[in-house]
């Protein structure tokens, strides 16, 4: 299996990607690209990054065989890549450490970030505290209301949380506002994007800082399974950073890959975030990709029970992997993800994030149609503590408590 080298020098993944931003920040993207490529080739930087991942975030994260879950479900064995065991509770910290180190290397003292549910905001605030940078986090008014605990965590970490009241007051608007702030402060500020989205070189950079997930998985799986690779790999996709990090080292290998989007209340309804299943080509946040929009090109508001998946766009490399059919993208509903979350809790004693529960839900379906001697690796991108409030409402409020 072989594909063209992406991205090309213009930051293109086939038809997708590129740099659709105001001229004012073009120089900053060039500067960033240059610094990033230098850092990539600098052994010292790479060593420092790997070391921080180990001693600060606790990597490598384990690969856990979910034995009871696999047995209860039937079919293939399910392994969990435990990104939930990272410092701050999700894979987001990998990228935040990488970009913060790059910011320090570039001599930038200020970082800005966008956040939806607050996970990337917390990761950004964390690395800002760790490396002595000032940090502003842009967050939609609506999300601030829904995620009061994460807002407080960010403040405790010394970050300034800026309420975004434009547009629909959620992640897409927080991202617009962070970009607007970056255009104003571009000379001394580093924009720490949280997902594999945005203008080139962000999608490439985020993938690079997240691919440790996939490389560790291959090492760990091979050690446990006498040199063989898994028969399928599954990850949830919002913007797509955990998925691209997991998939990256598998793309050239003969392993089926599955990205799982949020179907919300069903992709036949208007309440979903299934960008690849239902979206069309367009530009969002500096990148040409698939997105949810009206025929005229007004970007629409997505929906998912999981705040980390309700993004109307998707990283351009996922749009490309979808078009080239290297990765199969499926959608899982709120209800299916809740059921999977409960099943994982009861059988393995692991409370995963609602985002990750989408990947678990799809892997349970997939496993049923595979043999007992086959194996699936699921990227368990984060832990579920942040979702306890939502879960209480859904599980107890909806009288579904078992």
């Amino acid at each position, binding site marked *: 299996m072989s594909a063209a080298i992406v991205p090309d020098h*213009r930051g293109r993944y086939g038809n997708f990607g*590129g*740099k*659709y*931003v*105001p*001229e*004012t*920040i*073009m*120089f*900053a993207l060039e500067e960033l690209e240059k610094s990033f490529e230098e850092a990539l080739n600098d052994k010292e930087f790479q060593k420092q990054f790997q070391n921080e991942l180990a001693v600060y975030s606790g990597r490598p994260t384990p690969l856990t065989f979910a034995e009871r879950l696999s047995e209860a479900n039937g079919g293939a064995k399910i392994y969990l890549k435990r990104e939930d065991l990272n410092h701050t509770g999700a894979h987001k910290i990998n990228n935040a450490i990488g970009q913060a180190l790059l910011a320090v290397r570039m001599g930038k003292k200020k970082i800005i970030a966008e956040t939806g549910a607050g996970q990337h905001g917390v990761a950004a605030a964390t690395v800002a505290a760790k490396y002595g940078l000032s940090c502003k986090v842009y967050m939609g008014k609506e999300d601030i209301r829904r995620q009061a605990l994460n807002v407080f965590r960010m403040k405790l970490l010394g970050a300034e949380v800026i309420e975004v009241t*434009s*547009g629909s007051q959620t992640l*897409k*608007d927080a991202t*617009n506002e962070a*970009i*607007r702030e970056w*255009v*104003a*402060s*571009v*000379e001394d500020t580093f924009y720490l994007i949280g997902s594999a989205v945005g203008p080139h070189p962000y999608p490439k950079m985020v993938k690079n800082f997240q691919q440790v997930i996939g490389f560790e998985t291959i090492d760990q799986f091979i050690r446990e399974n006498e040199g063989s690779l898994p028969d399928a790999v599954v990850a949830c996709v919002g913007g797509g950073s955990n998925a691209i990090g997991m998939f990256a080292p598998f793309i050239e290998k003969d392993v089926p890959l599955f990205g799982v989007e949020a179907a919300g209340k069903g992709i036949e309804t208007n309440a979903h975030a299934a960008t690849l299943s239902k979206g*069309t*080509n*367009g*530009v*969002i*946040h*500096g990148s040409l990709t698939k997105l949810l*929009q009206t*025929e*005229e*090109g*007004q*970007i*629409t508001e997505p929906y998912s029970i999981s705040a980390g998946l309700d993004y109307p766009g998707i990283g351009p490399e996922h749009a490309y992997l979808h078009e080239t059919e290297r990765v199969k993208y499926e959608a899982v509903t709120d209800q299916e993800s809740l059921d999977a979350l409960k099943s994982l809790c009861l059988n393995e004693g692991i409370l995963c994030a609602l985002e990750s529960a989408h990947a678990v839900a799809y892997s349970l379906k997939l496993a049923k149609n595979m043999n007992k001697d086959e194996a699936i690796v699921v990227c368990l991108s984060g832990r579920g503590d942040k979702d306890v409030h939502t879960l209480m409402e859904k599980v107890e409020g909806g009288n579904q408590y078992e």
Partner: protein
Amino acid sequence: MNKRWAAFQNSADYRFVPYIMAGDPCEEATIELSLALEDCGAAALELGVPYSDPLADGPVIQRAGMRGLRQKMNLEKTIKLVSKLRGRGLKIPVIIFTYYNLLLQLGENRFMTLAEENGVDGILVPDLPYEESSYLKEMCSAHHLALISLVAPTTHNEKLNKLSREAEGFLYCISSLGVTGVRSEFRDGLNDFLRAAKEHSAVPVLVGFGLSKRNQIEQFEGTSDGFIIGSAIVKKIESLEKELINNREEAIVEFKQYIESLLPVYSR
């Protein structure tokens, strides 16, 4: 270059180019505001298209976009509005100011056809930098439309020279970092930047972003060929929203008084 651009370029005046949002607060108001602006001496008109995610715009123009969206204004209707403006006697060049996603969904081909049919003279796409614009530029030149280029204080010299040389219609020099919106001060070195832009430009060099007062505009008279005012005008329109719908004639009188108070004497 069409007649309207020829008149624009040959003008000896310090050129005034206003920006207003199509459909803000309603289509008929946009028509009368445009005619009023021409009456006050506008040398060209930038017509904004409402968009859900205008990431180069500040709060004033964001709100105008929301008002336009409520009127169901869109790119196709904005282009067709230009033909109505021509019917009502508007003679200055009209530039459609649209985000790239709207253009992509309408289709670049369809845009070109519609623009030619409806008397549009140019297009400005704030989120389409030079590096991504070669296809649109080709299409525009095949259809006799000017693709307006923006340059910023952060644009490096080599690129500034290239963009200035290739500019069509006018060269849009962004006065300051950040999004559109009124500013009280401008950075040092802005006049040097304008001079550098003018050195290579075959078309008039205009300064925009943040201008809202006569004395600010006068600062740049020696180093540029004109100026663009957006947010300050859009803010005035916002304050006249109800009157522009219910009592338009009086509102237009007040609007024109405001515009005249803004303009340097020599650009009227």
